[in-house]
């Protein structure tokens, strides 16, 4: 193995305030900061950068010209493009013109952070260690693994190596991790190929050529959602044909990725969606999957409609002012929060403008996903069963994913704990009944031990 090196990142016109989520990568690199002007872009920099990040400024250089220019100067390098200008953000074209990838900021800052870490890790030849999650369910007990495995401890933000390449899976350890409600082990980025080879072999043994591991399903789902949603941001997508193509993409994603599963065990499928360490588009994927599963569990709605509503429920946040997108909802001022509260309606508005022909049911599910059971939600303040049942389910899925994802400094909540927490919060404060209490109780019953053994509701046909 070669020695680690310190990669060089050249940043042209990149806003200082967006650098926060990129800190881990930036700290491992030498940074050259330059303004975006043509002479600087074309000048030879020393040291020669490995990675280039350029942010769109005014209109003096068009995106295509910028892409082609940088690609002519930096033929081998990773070149990332950032823009705040949603109406002209055409990720597909930007990539075709020469950028390695393009990001709408601040909305896609977490996608950039993830991709940048990977690029820096590769350029640094191991100087920056990056781990990818692998679902434990994809690893068969007693198999010998030819890749390293680690456990992530969110409480003290550390990865601890638990298995070297060549070790068998330590079952005791797996139980220990499961007791902490974690369903992932972490594999170094440069060894992920070996995991994929391993899982392909497993699928071949099962004669499941069309199948995929849960790890791969979740990764592909996140990637597909990004492709889908970035195709919807551009304001010039207004034709009937384009809308139909987008609708077909949605249906493909729902069929092949959201509802796909190697398992018919309901509780196990829900369990695979907790312990999510990513930020960004993985939320839409998880909520889509959870909404479909919760709907099946409760006998509410159609899985494909709930899944579709889950995919698109938050797309309206892309229409919010940039300064509101940049902050989590709890950090907004009351005035900003009032604007934030329009996002369910913005989602529907955007879907209609793009001529995506969703059913009335899906449209209502999306627009009502922040209505609260007690009538204190938004946008309309509907209460009880005036909120359609599908939207009640989507609201629970949304909250559930938020509660069960990995948050640094906190242990991971199990599905049962998360539901109990929601039930308890509502019992303590009857004025804060946000979610249908009966649905929460029913879902909790589905996680009780006797039901887990019976593998929950019969969903064999639903996938």
């Amino acid at each position, binding site marked *: 193995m070669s020695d680690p090196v310190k990669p060089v990142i050249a940043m042209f016109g990149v806003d200082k305030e967006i650098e926060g989520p990129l800190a881990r990568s930036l700290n491992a690199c030498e940074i050259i900061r330059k303004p975006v002007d043509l002479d600087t872009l074309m000048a030879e920099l020393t040291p020669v950068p490995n990675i280039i990040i350029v942010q769109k400024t005014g209109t003096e*250089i068009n995106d295509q010209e910028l892409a*082609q220019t940088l690609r002519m100067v930096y033929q081998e390098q990773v070149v990332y493009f950032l823009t705040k200008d949603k109406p002209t953000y055409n990720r597909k074209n930007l990539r075709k*013109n020469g950028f390695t990838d393009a990001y709408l900021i601040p909305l896609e800052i977490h996608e950039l952070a993830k991709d940048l870490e990977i690029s820096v890790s590769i350029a640094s030849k191991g100087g920056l260690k990056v781990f990818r999650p692998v679902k434990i369910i994809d690893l068969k007990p007693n198999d010998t693994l030819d890749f390293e495995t680690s456990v992530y401890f969110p409480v003290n933000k550390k990865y601890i190596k638990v298995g070297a390449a060549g070790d068998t899976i330590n079952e005791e350890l797996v139980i220990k991790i499961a007791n902490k409600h974690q369903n992932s082990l972490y594999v170094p980025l440069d060894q992920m190929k070996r995991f994929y080879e391993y899982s392909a072999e497993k699928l071949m043994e099962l004669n499941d050529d069309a199948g995929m591991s849960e790890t791969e399903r979740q990764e592909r789902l996140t990637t597909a959602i990004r492709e889908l949603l970035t195709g919807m941001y551009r304001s010039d997508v207004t034709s009937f044909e384009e809308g139909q193509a987008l609708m077909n993409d949605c249906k493909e994603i729902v069929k092949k990725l959201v509802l796909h599963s190697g398992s018919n065990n309901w509780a196990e499928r829900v369990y695979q969606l907790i312990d999510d360490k990513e930020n960004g588009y993985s939320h839409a994927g998880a909520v889509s999957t959870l909404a479909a599963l919760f709907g099946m569990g409760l006998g509410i709605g159609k899985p494909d409609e709930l899944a579709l509503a889950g995919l698109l429920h938050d797309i309206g946040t892309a229409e919010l002012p940039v300064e509101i997108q940049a902050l989590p909802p709890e950090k907004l001022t009351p005035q900003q929060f009032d604007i934030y509260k329009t996002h369910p309606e913005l989602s529907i508005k955007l879907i209609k403008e793009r001529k995506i022909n969703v059913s009335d049911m899906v449209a209502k599910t999306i627009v009502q996903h922040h209505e609260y059971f007690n009538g204190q939600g938004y946008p309309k303040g509907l209460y009880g069963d005036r909120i359609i049942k599908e939207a009640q389910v989507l609201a629970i899925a949304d909250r559930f994913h938020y509660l069960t994802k990995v948050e640094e400094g906190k242990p991971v909540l199990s599905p049962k704990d998360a539901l109990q927490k929601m039930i308890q919060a509502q019992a303590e404060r009857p004025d804060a009944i946000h979610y249908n209490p009966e649905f929460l109780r029913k879902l909790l019953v589905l996680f009780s031990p006797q039901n887990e053994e019976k593998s929950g509701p019969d969903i064999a046909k639903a996938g």
Partner: protein
Amino acid sequence: MTNAEARILLIDDMPTIRKLVKMQLEKAGAKHISEAADGHQAWEKLSEPGAYFDVIISDWMMPNCTGIDLLRRVRSSEKYKDIPFIMVTAEAEKCSVVEAKQAGCTDYVTKPFDVPMLLARIIKLLDSKAA
């Protein structure tokens, strides 16, 4: 012929790309480079009294008069039909190699490309023709 002697007509609607290609050509030793922003301007340059070019390097996608329009016009003219013509395109643009070849372009490159190497190839071609 050397790079320094070659008379080059460089056509691209994007000033940056023109500047960049020109810089690279100059680095490779080229001294006589004329620029144009589209096919019409290029034709004007070609038709200027006393003008003479050894090679035309043109972008395909340009407003007003595209690279392929220019190529066809050049190839159908008695005076300029033998000038080597290099067509440049970006990957994102819907251009066809077949169409360019049929219209008579000498070489075809996709951005990003190595201009000096391309120029060297053209000059070798010109020398072999002259010999």
